[in-house]
């Protein structure tokens, strides 16, 4: 039994050798040991197969006609950094094996190959792939959790904060009301609306002082809100999109969802918090995948520079899916905190409200369009950096 069957990623093996007889006999013997290898007869074919359906482990003969094994290895690792490659070298070419290791091969075996040894190497290579994938998933999960926790805490502390502010503001407000009513008392008693000027100015002074006290409180509150922002730095939106796509690829494939990108080559850098941008993309992609998880579909992520008559240049970041879309009754509520159509325990309903908060704090806006049955399109527009000004990390507001 293959002990990696409990791992989520199946062991998908590709055997690359130009000698059909040798290749088929190795494939056959590996099949007897529970593997299901696919085969390719050349480096070019190997790269082609990998593009259409990537394997997790490649067994690669160093000596190939046309593109040789080492070149194939380099291109393979370039295009699919996660794949692990086991090289097969001849006695005379062990140096190739060593060079291959430097270029990122998992290991090399010398011909004639002992089949059980090869099987063991393949399993080890695959374990490495699985473990790396797990670590990555865990890291994403942890950062998602941390951010979600932070947001939930923020909402919870908002309640506490509101109570505190109400209490703080109540006292000065009570005094202002009482002083104003005191003046009304005096007016009522007065002859022809005349109030002792000293008494009048004393009350007015008190009202003013208490008003200033309220202003101080709201000022501090706004300052507090600003402090909660995360650190900003110049970053490439396209780079972030590619990074997130890589992270989400496996989950997408699992639900028969293809993610493709249409990225504007001339997109200027923006100044933003990378973790916030990551969070926005993750939430939108997660939503799209879960909307399509029954039937599968396509997510298209687009970036573009737009020129608006009123607001000038804006960066567009769009996430479109081919899922069921959003009904008219729901569409006005999806950005509300805690609005979810997912079963209890599945969704918190915070994803889009977090996106909304992040995007509007950046001075941008997020909008949705959907034709039920034909998918949903989320469009984010961010103000483009002013031309000429080099993007710079903004100092921490204090």
């Amino acid at each position, binding site marked *: 039994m293959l002990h990696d069957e409990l791992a989520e990623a199946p062991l998908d093996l590709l055997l690359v050798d130009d000698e059909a007889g040798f290749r088929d006999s190795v494939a056959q013997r590996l099949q007897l040991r529970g593997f299901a290898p696919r085969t390719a007869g050349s480096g070019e074919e190997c790269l082609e197969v990998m593009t259409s359906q990537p394997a997790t482990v490649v067994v690669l003969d160093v000596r190939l006609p046309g593109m040789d094994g080492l070149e194939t290895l380099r291109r393979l690792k370039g295009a699919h950094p996660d794949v692990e490659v086991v090289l097969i070298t001849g006695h005379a070419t062990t140096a190739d094996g060593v060079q291959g290791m430097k270029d990122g091969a998992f290991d090399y075996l010398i011909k004639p190959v002992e089949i059980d040894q090869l099987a063991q190497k393949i399993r080890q290579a695959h374990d490495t792939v699985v473990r790396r994938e797990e670590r990555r998933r865990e890291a994403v999960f942890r950062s998602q959790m941390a951010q979600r926790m932070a947001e939930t805490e923020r909402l919870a502390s908002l309640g506490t904060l509101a*109570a505190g502010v109400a*209490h703080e503001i109540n*006292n000065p407000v009570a005094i202002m009301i009482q002083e104003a009513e*005191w003046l009304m008392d005096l007016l009522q008693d007065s002859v022809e609306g005349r109030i002792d000027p000293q008494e009048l100015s004393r009350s007015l002074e008190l009202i003013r002082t208490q008003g200033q006290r309220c202003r101080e409180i709201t000022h501090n509150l706004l300052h507090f809100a600003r402090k909660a922002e995360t650190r900003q730095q110049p970053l490439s939106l396209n780079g972030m999109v590619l990074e997130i796509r890589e992270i989400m690829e496996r989950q997408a494939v699992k639900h028969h969802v293809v993610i493709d990108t249409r990225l504007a080559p001339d997109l200027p850098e923006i100044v933003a918090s990378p973790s916030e941008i990551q969070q926005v993309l993750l939430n939108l992609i997660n939503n799209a995948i879960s909307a399509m998880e029954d039937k599968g579909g396509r997510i298209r992520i687009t970036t573009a520079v737009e020129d608006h008559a009123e607001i000038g240049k804006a960066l567009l970041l769009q996430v479109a899916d081919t899922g069921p879309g959003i009904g008219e009754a729901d569409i006005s509520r999806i950005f509300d905190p805690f609005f979810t159509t997912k079963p209890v325990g599945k969704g918190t309903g915070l994803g889009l409200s977090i996106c909304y908060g992040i995007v509007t704090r950046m001075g941008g806006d997020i909008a949705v369009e959907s034709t039920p049955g034909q998918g949903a399109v989320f469009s984010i527009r961010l103000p483009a950096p002013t031309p000429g000004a080099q993007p710079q990390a903004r100092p921490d507001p204090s």
Partner: protein
Amino acid sequence: MQDGATPIRLLIVDDERGFTEVLSKRMTRRGLRVDTAASGAEAVRMLRTQDYDATIIDLKLEGMDGVEILKVFKLLDPGLPILMLTGHGSETAVKASMRLGAADYLSKPVDFEALVAKVLNVARQGGDKA
């Protein structure tokens, strides 16, 4: 309204001086005789040297909280009617106060007329003291 002969003597205990001062002048205009105290210690000192017909105590004071003052007042003068002023979210403290013998309570920010009405309602008349 008081008819002047024996004014009601009221003690207001609150650490928000601006508030006690304006209440005091407005109550005085309505014919009450008002003293103020800004802390528990000051309030106890006043109660030891003077007789009052009613008191208003803020639940939230720095140093000594309103419920503690209430307890001390009840020991010093069991028959003294006490009105508690409460903020939001002090339901438990309100219940405790009522159990400990407060005459009534009002939530802040208070309506002046409602406060005057309550004071007049609970105050013992100048003469009927033990």
